């Protein structure tokens, strides 16, 4: 029986593992956290349908439970990957016939953009923090009060040469719109401002959501990046920005700032490249063999990619890549 190691237990990895199992392959699924689910574990609802993230995860987990050819190893990382052997952080070495890398991305650390004051001022939070607040069911300011004026800043750690992130993270625009609507649903009286460079609504239903945010929820969209944030004497946040549509600088007091943090290439990618013949793109994301017909294959035969390890992707795309990577792996095993 052929043995495939899937590295990463997020949506792409889980999907890929379940597809491989269907084909009668022995699968070892590695997850560095204690639980499968990846980034989605910390997410509340998914755009554009407001589907609870938990719903997607439990369906995926359900597909894997009880599978007799599956070995799930949590709390371990892969340190070196070859098509024949995967070395784990515990020092253990696993023999295999192929490997799928589905390690996903690293969330951009908002502290790097020090001027936005994340980790310095209360009430400057990231989009990931806000999802956690939604999960807990309590979106509150540090002092317990309800937010009245909220700014959402797009492109934090995306399309920003100053922090070496030239690429667009793709999903933040629609996340920003989704979160603005969710905030307005919670606090209909609140003013929500989205500061953006461009609004990129690439998926089905996204543009409609953007329109709805404006017409139905009265979310304000200001074209311009925030340049700096400072605290005011009454514990609010003062933001400085430029409204590039009117060409004027603006200052605004808000009581909560949400930073839409982008997708950074996985921090582990560089180490991966050092220990193998795999290639990285200038953005740090892994380089697929080919952008069209080999987009889930690496440049090394027998090593495949699924999900956001190669580029920012949304959940649906990552799930599809899980299937595609499984298919490519099966084909490769058959040819061997």
């Amino acid at each position: 029986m052929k043995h495939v190691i899937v590295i990463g237990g997020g949506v792409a990895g889980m999907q890929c593992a379940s597809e491989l199992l269907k084909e009668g392959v022995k699968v070892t699924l590695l997850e560095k956290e204690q639980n499968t689910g990846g980034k989605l574990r910390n997410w509340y609802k998914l755009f554009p349908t407001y589907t609870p993230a938990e719903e997607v995860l439990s369906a995926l987990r359900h597909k894997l439970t009880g599978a007799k050819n599956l070995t799930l190893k949590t709390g371990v990382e892969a340190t070196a990957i070859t098509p024949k052997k995967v070395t784990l952080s515990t020092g253990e070495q696993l023999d295999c016939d192929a490997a799928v890398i589905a390690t996903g991305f690293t969330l951009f650390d908002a502290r790097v953009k020090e001027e936005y004051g994340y980790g310095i001022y209360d009430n400057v939070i990231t989009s990931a923090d806000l999802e956690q607040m939604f999960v807990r069911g309590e979106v509150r300011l540090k002092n317990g009060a309800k937010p009245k004026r909220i700014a959402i800043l797009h492109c934090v750690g995306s399309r920003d040469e100053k922090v070496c992130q030239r690429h667009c993270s793709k999903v933040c625009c629609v996340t920003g719109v989704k979160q603005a609507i969710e905030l307005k649903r919670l606090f209909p009286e609140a003013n929500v401002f989205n500061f953006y460079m461009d609004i990129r609504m690439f998926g089905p239903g996204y543009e409609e959501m953007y329109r709805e945010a404006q017409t139905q929820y009265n979310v304000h969209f200001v074209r311009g990046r925030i340049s700096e944030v400072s605290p005011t004497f009454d514990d609010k946040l003062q933001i400085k920005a430029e409204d590039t549509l009117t060409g004027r600088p603006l200052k605004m007091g808000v009581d909560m700032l949400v930073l839409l943090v982008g997708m950074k290439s996985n921090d582990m990618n560089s180490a991966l490249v050092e220990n193998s013949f795999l290639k990285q793109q200038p953005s740090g994301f892994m380089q697929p063999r080919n952008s069209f017909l080999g987009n889930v294959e690496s440049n090394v035969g027998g090593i495949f990619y699924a999900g956001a390890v190669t580029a920012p992707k949304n959940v649906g795309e990552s799930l599809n890549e899980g299937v595609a990577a499984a298919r490519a792996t099966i084909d490769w095993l058959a040819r061997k």
Partner: protein
Amino acid sequence: MTFFAKFCIPFIIGAAILFIVIACKYISWLKNLPRQDLKLIAVNIFSFKSIKAVWEVICESLLHRRIFRVNRMLGYMHMSLAFGWFLLIAVGWIETVAYLGFKWVPLQGHVFFKYFAVLNSINEHKPLFDFVMDLLLLFVLSGVGLAWFKRVRSRALGMKRTTKHVAFDRMALSALWFIFPLRLLAESCTAAIYGGGSFLTGGIGILLSKTMSTYTLEMIYEPLWWLYSIALGTFFVAMPFSRYMHIFTEIPLIFLRNYRLRPEAKEKSYDNFEVEACSRCGICIDPCQLQSQLGINEVQSVYFLRDRRYNMLQQKIANNCLMCGRCEQICPVGINLNTLRLNSRTSMRNIPNEGRYNYLRGVDRSTGSGKVGYFAGCMTLLTPNTLSAMQKIFSTAREDVWWADKDGGVCCGRPLKLSGESDSAQKMIDYNTELFRKHNISTLVTSCPICLKVFREEYRLEGIEVLHHSEYILRLMKNGKLKVKYTVGSTYTYHDPCELGRGCGIYDEPRAVIEAVGELLEPKHNRKDAFCCGSSVANTAINDSQQLTIATKVAEELDQTGAAKIVTSCPLCKKAIKRGAKTQVVDLSEIIAENIK
């Protein structure tokens, strides 16, 4: 006695042209000096400063002491050529006096004395002079040999890269390389036919007389003196138009500098002395990070000065400089490279737009009150960790603080100055000066070295002490107003910001502050030799990824120290290094704020 032969003509013409051109240059430069500079000369010329200048001329123009500090071989090469040639002339003059007594001898009589001694049938020989002159010639020839060797292997003389020369330089250089070997041959040939000479010319003379017939020797005798004269003449003609103009220019420069003349924000006549004193030795090339880390080869100070001198300076050259000062501190002539580049930028693009600065009128967003004023600067406002650390330090020390720009203020003016818009910068300088005066502060603290430099150099803040936060924090600690705890085992490394270190000479204070809380591990390049972070506001030509390349190289060295934290004391450096470092990067104030007892 006759002191003329036809072969002297190239030499005489060359020397005359040299004399006329140099005289014209000096007269026009001195004539156009601003009144202020002329006054400085008048005041200082009959003072101890002139004696000091003479001593400096001996040390630098002749002995090349500063080049010795760069590399001993390189120093020897320059010294043997300059000092050796000087001694040949001086001893040669004494030699003529020794033979002929005190009487007027034309210039060529001194230079070609060996020839004229024969011509005028002076048959006696003075072996001591022959020996000394041969020794000096050997000394100079050893320098020429090294110069040839440097062409092939510059690394052996401590230079990875050497200057790319213009046509006049090549012409003068080739002539210079041939002058002394030709002199050796001409004098040896003379010795071969007429005797005389010491171990070198005499020795070669014996060798020549043994290997060649008298007829052949007499055939080549005149042509050799001709060639020697032509080489000298060619060199003299090329000299004032080539880099060798530095030989004569450095001398008045040293005097003027001792009289306290300096280049300023606007170009002026004095700059000519600095620009033409550049010998294009190329020592400034290797320290330039644009060269070593980005492979940009045409912008270094040597090329900037060359282009400015020949009136072919382009903005893209003038603007492509980090102004880190690494070249300035190693320049053997001590040229004020940064100031010259800035005033070039000013002449090239100073287009003040009056309307743009109307908003300055009457703005005052400052808060608080106290004798101590704190000016954060734009970059500190973009690194609020520094700002909140300073807030904590001020409140712990119970200092009443007037916050100049916490809620927004006007730029210090330095970035505009650096981009050559000095008139616009002046508006900001005037505005801020008035603001500081209005609020009656006695101390002005800033955590931005860029602001600090312009406060110290361009603002007229008599009565207000301007301090960098490193100096201020150290003072608070010494006064006992601020007590910090030392953690055994905590390690820090320190990056010297250009504007603070080379710019303001502040190296020790930040180090003393760090050593109060933990162990300091120095990176390989530190203090005067420290690298620039690459994000300098002075460079508007390189792009972001080039800045990042530099930052990564700098961060690499800091990471290698193994320290737990990288400390710097400039918000711009902090942001730049953070992009490339694996280790956490913090401002000096942050490590103090978190270790307050």
